[in-house]
């Protein structure tokens, strides 16, 4: 019995490039297809992966700055509180959470995360995935409010307005926001896919606090959203604004304790008027 496909010779040399994440996207997909049917290549991939997996160990150890943990844990603690509030409902299918947002992390939106794949697949898909996204920065979603799962469910459960943001046909437009942060540039981008706050040179929230997005309608108190976020190290952020903007006179951002607040505890640091 043959242990490899007739086209094995064509692909045999691609095993290394595949494991190193160096195949071009189209080639990567073709190799994956071949791999599914070629025990010989499958064996070689498993065998050589051992070498690839040791490569990170050759790197000199460098300690991350303590502040990095603080930033990450601020977001994690916030989301854990939301998750706890959502309770068992958070175990409901991800599709509930992803219905609203074309910009929800690809990982959540598709249910096909890097983590679902083997390390080899992980690496191999790198280039391909980036290209499929048309160069859209992938990092942005991490600054998004969205822990799609718990947050959207929480909003739904709380009578919030998770769902399609804007009615179809709306022309994309950008509103320049006012901000209390000197030197910061914040814009609200609105399209039929949703609204996104795009910040540059925005300072990180104070230690132990996160930024929270609010929707302000005339005559009403600001409505809390699940948008809890921080900035990247360079002060940039892309934050999806959950909920409908119908009737919203202002999108506000305040800094709040981890986990967010039911009502703003401070004056807004960002104010964007969508109308």
């Amino acid at each position, binding site marked *: 019995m043959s242990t490899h496909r007739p086209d094995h010779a064509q692909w045999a040399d691609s095993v290394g490039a595949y494991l190193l994440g160096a195949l071009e996207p189209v080639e990567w997909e073709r190799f994956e297809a071949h791999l599914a049917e070629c025990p010989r290549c499958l064996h070689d991939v498993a065998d050589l992966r051992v070498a690839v997996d040791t490569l990170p160990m050759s790197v000199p150890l460098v300690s991350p700055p303590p502040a990095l943990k603080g930033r990450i844990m601020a977001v994690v603690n916030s989301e854990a509180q939301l998750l706890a509030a959502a309770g068992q409902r958070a175990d409901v299918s991800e599709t509930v959470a992803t219905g609203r947002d074309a910009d929800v992390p690809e990982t*959540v939106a598709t249910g096909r995360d890097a983590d679902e794949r083997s390390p080899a697949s992980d690496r191999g898909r790198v280039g391909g995935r980036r290209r499929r996204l048309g160069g859209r920065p992938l990092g942005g979603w991490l600054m998004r409010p969205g822990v799609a799962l718990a947050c959207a469910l929480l909003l739904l459960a709380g009578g919030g307005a998770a769902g399609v943001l804007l009615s179809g046909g709306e022309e994309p437009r950008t509103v320049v926001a006012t901000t209390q942060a000197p030197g910061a540039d914040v814009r609200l981008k609105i399209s039929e896919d949703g609204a996104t706050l795009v910040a540059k040179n925005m300072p990180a929230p104070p230690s132990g606090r996160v930024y929270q997005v609010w929707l302000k309608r005339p005559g009403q108190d600001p409505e809390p959203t699940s948008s809890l976020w921080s900035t990247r190290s360079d002060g940039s952020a892309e934050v999806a604004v959950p909920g409908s903007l119908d009737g919203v006179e202002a999108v506000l951002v305040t800094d709040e304790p981890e986990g967010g607040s039911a009502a703003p505890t401070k004056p807004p640091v960002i104010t964007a008027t969508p109308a």
Partner: protein
Amino acid sequence: MQLMRRGQAAAFEVIYERHSQAAYSLAYRMAGSRGVAEDVVQEAFLNIWRSGARYERARGSVRTWVLGIVHHRAIDALRRSFVHEKRRASDEGLEETLETRERTDVEAARHEEAATVRAALAHLPSEQSQVIELAYFGGFTHSEIAEMLETPIGTVKGRMRLGLEKMRHGLGAGQVGLG
């Protein structure tokens, strides 16, 4: 990991404590910039937090899984920023940030493993270690490397495979692992 799946931040914090240094080191090695490395690690760990349930033990250790995600994010960062000139970590005074805390037995073992891996890389013919490093740490595709080195693509792919095979044999089965 099960605890993390249930949204327990403390469980996540343990994962971060155990693997953040290796993660940051890898990101820094690839990006050559502290700021980018921080972004990469932040993105990777938040990804891990949000998808902890997807870790599968059969696919390797948690460390392998974490570093795979970091590598993935770092390549995304490199490619989207079009920063493809080599930027070495030493450019930013690596010496100042080297780990100084007391070494535990585990850390001592990892230092030994690191030395083994470096030795395995160092023993490769330079043209093989070069393409492996450009691909893995530089985030270049084989065609980019071929163009850069003015070498046929087939040769580049062959060097990658040969180099990994030699590394694999040099490391020996089970002698080094990302535990």
